């Protein structure tokens, strides 16, 4: 069924279709309508789950550890400062190998106080052992929800994951979306039946003390599971397409990359605007294409090398800054190429910080900057884009 609804409502409905046993949320700012709609579903008897309102994001994720370790399918959602407050718990979840799925609504981190979109929050927790997949539009965020449960809950993976969706731009937009069919989701996503749970009849310990003689091995196994998730993400994405008819590529997707000389690399909701700009530029004869990063963790290094090997210049566009170096995506991107034979110049732009609007003219300006590298070489490897002249 296709309807025009607010993005947050659409995500809440996708979560409902995944039948979580426990939803635990901190319902106050920073939060979105997603959890508000979920609480309505529970109150209206449309979702049979334990819905827990807690006093902080630290507690929302902590309480899900208890639920998940008892064998429940669990869900929460947060954004910006809320995610920051979860930082410690994120590592506990991934270290205990609990397949919790969270919608991370991307918003900037204070100070200065900002409620608007960028991706500093989730980029800041990229090393926490959670799979991170970025949605281009509301439909992709909907569809990622059952996909990520399926990936995370696979016994070979058992790794938590985040659907990352841009705050306001996707959570507050009204646009037509195809709703998931509950029955089809049930078929696609079987019930969570973990091999190891907390059970008084068969006592086990989770999240135990590991002294130096074992800690490395836990991290090694966790690392291996994340590596295995690469193939699993691609496989589940294909499987989803077979069942629901909507395809998304895999860890990456590409647009107009055949014969592209200038290749843009980005992720999240800016992808749609970039595609529009590319259509304009292509009609003017500019050979520009796009690689959309879907999975940022695991990072699709090999896929990027294959997709970008014939480009003459590569430019990353990202909504974060790693203070003291450059954009995190730019660093990762360059790292993917270093030990290969590909010597394509790579530059990067930080854009859209704290909700700064990005239009087609901005994308055109970045493409222009990238094309200059072809003639003049790299003048500036990393640039914070669109800064007011009085600050320069």
């Amino acid at each position, binding site marked *: 069924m296709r309807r025009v609804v607010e993005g947050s409502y659409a995500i809440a409905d996708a979560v409902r279709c995944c039948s979580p046993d426990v939803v635990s949320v901190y319902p106050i700012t920073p939060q979105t309508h997603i959890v508000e709609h979920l609480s309505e579903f529970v109150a209206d008897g449309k979702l049979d789950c334990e819905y827990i309102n807690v006093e902080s994001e630290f507690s929302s994720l902590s309480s899900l550890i208890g639920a998940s370790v008892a064998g429940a399918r669990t869900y929460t959602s947060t954004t910006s400062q809320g995610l920051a407050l979860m930082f410690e718990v994120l590592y506990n979840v991934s270290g205990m190998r609990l397949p919790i799925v969270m919608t991370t609504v991307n918003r900037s981190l204070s100070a200065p106080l900002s409620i608007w979109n960028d991706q500093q929050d989730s980029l800041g927790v990229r090393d926490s052992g959670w799979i991170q997949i970025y949605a281009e539009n509301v439909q992709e965020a909907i569809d990622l929800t059952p996909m990520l449960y399926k990936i995370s809950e696979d016994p070979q993976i058992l790794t938590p994951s985040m659907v990352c969706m841009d705050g306001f731009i996707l959570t507050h937009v009204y*646009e037509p979306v195809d709703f998931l069919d509950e029955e089809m989701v049930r078929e696609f996503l079987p019930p969570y039946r973990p091999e190891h749970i907390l059970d008084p009849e068969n006592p086990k310990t989770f999240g135990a003390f590991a002294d130096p003689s074992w800690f490395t091995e836990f991290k090694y196994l966790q690392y291996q599971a994340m590596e295995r998730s690469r193939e699993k993400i691609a496989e589940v994405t294909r499987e989803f397409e077979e069942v629901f008819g909507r395809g998304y590529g895999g860890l990456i997707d590409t647009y107009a990359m055949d014969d592209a000389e200038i290749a843009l690399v980005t992720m999240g909701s800016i992808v*749609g605007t970039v595609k529009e700009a590319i259509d304009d530029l292509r009609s003017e004869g500019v050979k520009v294409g796009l690689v959309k990063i879907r999975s940022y963790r695991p990072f699709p290094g090999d896929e990027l090398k294959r997709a970008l090997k014939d480009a003459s210049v590569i430019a990353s566009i990202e909504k974060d800054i790693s203070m003291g170096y450059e954009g995190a995506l730019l660093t990762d991107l360059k790292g993917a190429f270093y030990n290969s034979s590909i010597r394509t110049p790579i530059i990067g732009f930080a854009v859209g910080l704290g909700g700064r609007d990005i239009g087609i003219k901005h994308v055109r300006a970045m493409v222009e900057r990238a094309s200059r590298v072809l003639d003049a070489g790299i003048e500036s490897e990393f640039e914070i884009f669109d800064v007011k002249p009085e600050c320069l």
Partner: protein
Amino acid sequence: MKEIRFHGRGGQGAVTAAELIAIAAFEDKKYSQAFPAFGVERRGAPVMAFARIADEPIRIRSQIYEPDYVIVQDVTLLDVVDLASGLKPEGKIIINTDKSAKDLLLKTKAEIVTIDATRIALEKLGRPIVNTTMLGAFCGATGEVSLESINKAILGRFSGALGEKNLDAIKTAYKGVSR
């Protein structure tokens, strides 16, 4: 693609109006998108909302800078906001006012459509909430969405007597601007 910008004040339902246009356009078998100019909402402060209508899926997500249409719910914004900013010369700006277009001293090459939506809303709804009434004016002045679909979107949002009153207000505004 047609792009619409809404100007109102916090609490006047500009965002709801944008959403209802998106729903109505979808009823007309078109693609649509609606979103607010995200801000810290305060009652009475100038607010904006945006809508796009197209025959193809809509991918662009920037705000709207060169709208085809501008809908102004509150004429007192004239002194506060550059209402016609970027408005295409062949576009239209639809303003809730009891004044005539030339008395507004609005600098634009686009057509200015005026409608006394406050009077209509007071008469039909008993309250000076003009967002739905202005949808009737938009529909009549532009034909970008059908009246049937606007009505359907309204009834999806407001049920019972309130829904019917809104339809009445919309019809009055529709006729008031139709030529």
